[in-house]
């Protein structure tokens, strides 16, 4: 959710000229009207201040100006063309989010998540992997924590006493490592291609410049392959030493193999769809 006290910033790779918004990662640019340029030139200012200035400059009712600014920023954010710089304390934002979630509950909807785009250095294979792991670090930690908490109740049913925590942590950590390795695998094959890591809600993906079909397939396969290779190494190690906790750690990583099928976007790209 976006608050009027939030600010916006142009992510690395996105630039503003006099009347166009350009994205070097996508290799595209889009024309902006006067109002669009007006709003984006004030990146860094709180959105309510921008809306007030827009209302004064274009002689608009304040509510209309605020709605226009929020809708414009919302659209650009959903396209990963602007990042939101939240204002206020994290706990306050969490409380606001919970309040909005409760208000939306009767409709069966959740607040639309904010998109966050981070720059990736794809100058070399190693830089690509390191910058992806760095960019997704917080995300990986959050997934590990959330997965462990979600998996705790079901593991209480299947695990014996004393093993519950280890089983849930193993699956949670494996899930998080899998996400990091998956995206790092993609980045490893994107050497020299402008790319960015995008996080939106529960989705994490790489945005990159258009590629030739063969390379696109290679990039698509490399993500799941990295996670599956690590997972199978852990499963084989655990099986060789009859160590269930090591096998459990490898299971979520091995599950990334499903991304190679047409069930996942990577699999569809790899299969030439």
């Amino acid at each position, binding site marked *: 959710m976006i608050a009027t006290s939030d600010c916006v910033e142009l992510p690395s790779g996105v630039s503003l000229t006099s009347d166009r918004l350009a994205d070097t990662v*996508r290799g595209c640019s889009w024309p902006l009207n006067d109002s669009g340029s007006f709003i984006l030139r004030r990146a860094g200012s709180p959105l309510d201040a921008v809306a007030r200035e827009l209302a004064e400059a274009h002689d608009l009712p304040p509510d209309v100006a605020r709605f226009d600014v929020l809708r414009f920023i919302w659209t650009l954010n959903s396209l990963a063309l602007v990042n939101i710089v939240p204002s206020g304390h994290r706990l306050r934002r969490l409380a606001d989010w919970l309040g909005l979630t409760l208000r939306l509950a009767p409709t069966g909807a959740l607040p639309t998540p904010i998109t966050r785009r981070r720059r990736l250095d794809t100058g070399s294979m190693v830089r690509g992997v390191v910058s992806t792991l760095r960019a997704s670090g917080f995300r990986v930690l959050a997934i590990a924590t959330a997965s462990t908490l979600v998996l705790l109740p079901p593991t209480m049913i299947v695990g014996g006493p004393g093993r519950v925590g280890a089983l849930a942590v193993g699956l949670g950590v494996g899930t998080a490592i899998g996400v990091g390795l998956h995206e790092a695998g993609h980045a490893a094959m994107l050497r020299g291609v402008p790319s960015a890591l995008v996080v939106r809600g529960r989705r994490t993906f790489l945005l990159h410049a258009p590629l030739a079909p063969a390379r696109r397939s290679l990039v698509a396969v490399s993500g799941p392959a990295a996670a599956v290779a690590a997972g199978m190494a852990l499963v*084989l190690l655990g099986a060789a030493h009859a160590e269930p906790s090591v096998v459990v750690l490898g299971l979520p990583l091995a599950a990334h193999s499903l991304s190679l*099928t047409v069930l996942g976007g990577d699999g569809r790209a790899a299969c030439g769809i």
Partner: protein
Amino acid sequence: MRDLRAFAFGAIAIGVLAYAGMAALAVATLAAGRSLAVGLGPLVFVAVEREASAGVMTFGSGLAAVAIVGGLANVASARLIRRRAGRRSDGVE
């Protein structure tokens, strides 16, 4: 060629998943000091036998059969998607 790719990726994906799942089951069985045999008719997926001082895990032809079925299912799904949606290129992985 596309069908071959879809078959290969589907077979690998389902084969890996089946192997990992059966390995987890077998290792958990070994750790519990029990025996186990998972199969479907003549197809054996995994068998765990306890011997005097150690356990033995055997992975059977059932895993290969599951992988082949997974590959064929992926080919069929890929054909269906191609027919319905056509080619898509969004530059997102």
